[in-house]
């Protein structure tokens, strides 16, 4: 979907909801081309692992490729980071002594097969009819 870039169009009550920014669809997610140029697209494709470096070097700006290679070298160090050793024991010591709380009955997941559902429905209908018949008799 494209953004409406027409400044003459005022936002009003009847602005279509699809054009409004919401928490569920933040502005940053709009699939609008950023620069729209091939160089940026190729650079992103390379960074996403979709095209080889040679293609990025041939199409995109060489400076940009070098820049991202440098960033990648730094990022690679971060990718190898491990949780500090003491954190494991810290967490284990901080765990409550009680067992994890059981899920209350009203939050438990219930699995109902079609046969059980049909039987339950038939039972409910039978009970309903019985109550109805009893009430009619009582009048």
């Amino acid at each position, binding site marked *: 979907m494209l953004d409406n870039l027409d400044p003459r169009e005022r936002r009003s009550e009847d602005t279509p909801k699809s054009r409004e920014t919401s928490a569920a669809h*933040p502005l*940053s*997610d*709009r*699939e*609008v081309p*950023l*620069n729209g140029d091939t160089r*940026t697209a190729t650079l*992103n494709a*390379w*960074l*996403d*692992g*979709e*095209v*080889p*470096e040679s293609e*990025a070097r041939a199409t995109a700006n060489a*400076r*940009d490729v*070098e*820049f*991202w*290679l*440098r*960033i*990648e*070298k*730094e*990022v*690679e*160090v*971060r*990718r*190898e*980071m*491990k*949780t*500090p050793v003491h*954190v*494991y024991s*810290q*967490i*284990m010591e*901080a*765990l*409550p*002594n009680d*067992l*994890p*709380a*059981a*899920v209350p009955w009203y*939050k438990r*997941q219930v699995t109902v097969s079609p046969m059980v559902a049909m039987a339950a429905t038939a039972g409910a209908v039978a009970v309903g009819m019985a109550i109805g018949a009893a009430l009619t008799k009582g009048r």
Partner: protein
Amino acid sequence: MKRYTSGVKTTSVMVAPRAADSQEADHEVIGRVLAGDRNAFGMLIRRYSDPLYRHALGMTGSPDVAEDILQASFIKAYQHLAEVHGRFDAWIFRIVANGCKDWLKNIRRTHLSYEEDDQPSAFATPEEELDRTELRSDLDRALAQLAPSLREAFVMKHVEGRSYEEMADLLGTTVGALKMRVHRAREALQVLLEEKYA
């Protein structure tokens, strides 16, 4: 699609390397914890703490805060362990990711830096190491200026090396939306850093 060696290494794992066949599956470990084996929970911590720590560190920029978030998240996970119905790795990831977002909402950082004395270095010479220290601080500062959703996408893609499909799975959004976030984050970072580094 053929994957090329590029600036980004993409792993084919979810939060952490999937449990090998010889390892006990998550739901079995959870069953043991719920049956009273408190120490079995340590297995889940060991299995998932590294990628979760990297996420928290990437999002907050502070090792101390990342440790705190990790600890609080695992304690919360332990207390609510009986409520896990799907994948534990995705569930604990959401707890950590929400912890990071809450922290970002509550605090505004002006300076972020990694203190990673015992972390590996990919640089051979002291000069390279010095350059790296500067780049590291500059990258931290630039990341801190990104909107949380862009930072999250960049960290997951580049620092954690996840595929877009994994990211979409964990964040409950579309691959297209995440590509857009990552591309915007890259563009913003390049604008912030290119004067000095490009």
